[in-house]
């Protein structure tokens, strides 16, 4: 293994704080499984022994938003549910990312009807859209890897303004 080999040779490595923080962040993304409908089954399938999401450090599915940094919105979001999804998103600590899993969440999909939100990007900032109805587990893993790539490019100071901003909002 790369890192261990280096450590036994020299005993130290040189890197930036940004790189090591981003590396740590991307290797243990804890998903919040917002399983609403059909896609939830494929999301569970991604965690089962065959597809094994644990390979990417994301097997810790936490059902409380307070412990998560990635929200996987899996399933059709209706207007009634949108309020709930948004509320759960607000409870997640920063920094946080969102995967829109499947056609329904991305664009309303096959549900052109009165009660379905035509794309969750109307009320949530989405990082990765996943195609498919529902997407195969491989596709979800691909989305997760894309998120990891995105995280690896972040710097620690990208998020340093967020907390003061939030405090300001609360004080207002």
């Amino acid at each position: 293994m790369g890192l261990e080999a280096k450590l036994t040779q020299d005993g130290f490595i040189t890197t930036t704080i940004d790189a090591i923080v981003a590396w740590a962040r991307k290797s243990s993304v804890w998903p919040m499984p917002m399983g609403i409908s059909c896609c939830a089954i494929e999301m569970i399938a991604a965690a089962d022994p065959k597809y094994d999401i644990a390979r990417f450090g994301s097997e810790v599915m936490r059902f409380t938003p307070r412990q998560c940094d990635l929200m996987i919105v899996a399933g059709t979001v209706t207007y009634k549910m949108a309020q709930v999804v948004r509320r759960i998103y607000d409870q997640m600590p920063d920094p946080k990312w969102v995967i829109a899993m499947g056609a329904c969440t991305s664009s309303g999909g096959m549900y052109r009807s009165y009660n379905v939100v035509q794309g969750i990007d109307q009320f949530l900032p989405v990082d990765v859209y996943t195609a498919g109805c529902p997407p195969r587990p491989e596709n979800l893993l691909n989305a997760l890897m894309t998120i990891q790539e995105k995280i690896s490019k972040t710097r620690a100071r990208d998020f340093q303004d967020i907390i003061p901003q939030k405090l300001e909002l609360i004080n207002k």
Partner: protein
Amino acid sequence: MDKIKKVYSDEKIYKKLLEDNNLTIEDALENEMVINMGPQHPATHGVLRLVLRLDGETVIKVVPELGYLHRGYEKMAEDMSFIEFIPHTDRLDYTATMCNNVAYVLAVEKLAGVEAPPRAQWIRMIIAELSRIAAHMIAIGTFAMDVGAVTMVMWTFRERERIQEIFDRIAGARFTTSYTRIGGVASDIDDEALKMIKHFLDTFEPGLKDMDDLMLHNRIFIERLEGIGVLTKEDAISLGVTGPNLRASGVEYDVRRAKPYLFYNQVDFKVPTYSEGDSLARYFLRGDEVRESVKILYQCLEKIPNGEVLANDPKKVLPHKTEIYTKMEELIHDFMIINHGINPPVGDTFFSAENPKGELGFYIVSNGTGYPWKMKIRSPSFCNLQAISKICEGAMISDVIAIIGSLDPVMGEADK
């Protein structure tokens, strides 16, 4: 902002809960309290929301709140032709997609007066039973996970994954299959797929035994569920509960036996029943049903004949894709059916089939055009859920989880 408040105030629910009791908000510890469970809760199997009134840990009253996944199927069905609606049936009970496909096309065939050729009907039986196994695997696994046995869900998903592979081979999609067509099935089942099914059945039995060994010799599991959430026979009938939940309460009612469709009258199978009506009985019953399905599948593999998989009724049944590209007449028929629909006669029919969750019924009203004037989906999960408020009364709050798991609702079809 005002409007949001107006629409989402839960006043009526709370009012309902506050009826005839001495609840005061000031002193929650001294009095009864109201807590909210869901819609985002790991054990509610989707987006079910329960509002509970508690005295300590004892549940006094439960008000279920549905509609968080109301997608408007019935409205959309009025706006699309009979064939267009087939993919939508996949997403009703998304744990057993093939069963829904089969039930829907049988309902339309009853209305239109089409009959599928024998081979297609046997194929439908095979896929429906495979789908039933897959659905019960999810039901058993998630139920065990809800009460604390996480290993189980890994094991059941391993078996389910193998069924998905077979579906992948048969229909070209592992999950949302849309395999059936009015008057038959989309494509013939090949020998490779039949071999895969045979292999699956042969190796499934040991896996099932492992699961039984894990759960049924487990004292914690048995004691956790025995006598929890008892649903009596009279209540079950009056509340309209169907499927495994009804049979666990001692009523031997299975649509496959009571009103045989396809060739269920030509295969030999038992309808397992239990008299206890508690969560444990509902768990056992699903295991028994899986074994019966295996039995049916073996018989189907033996009896399946050769022949066509689409009925010869050009005005109502879509022709084979290969013929559309080579023959003029087939092309015209395909064009007419896609554009104008199959035009069943004026009238209304109700057809119901036995799904893993219970009795799935379609009530279709036709006015003679290619679009249904009305389509009502009688979804089993919706009716089964109605029993929750009855059987949760007097239970402990931790038992509510076990009860939901044992009733096994799927919100996709409960909310429609």
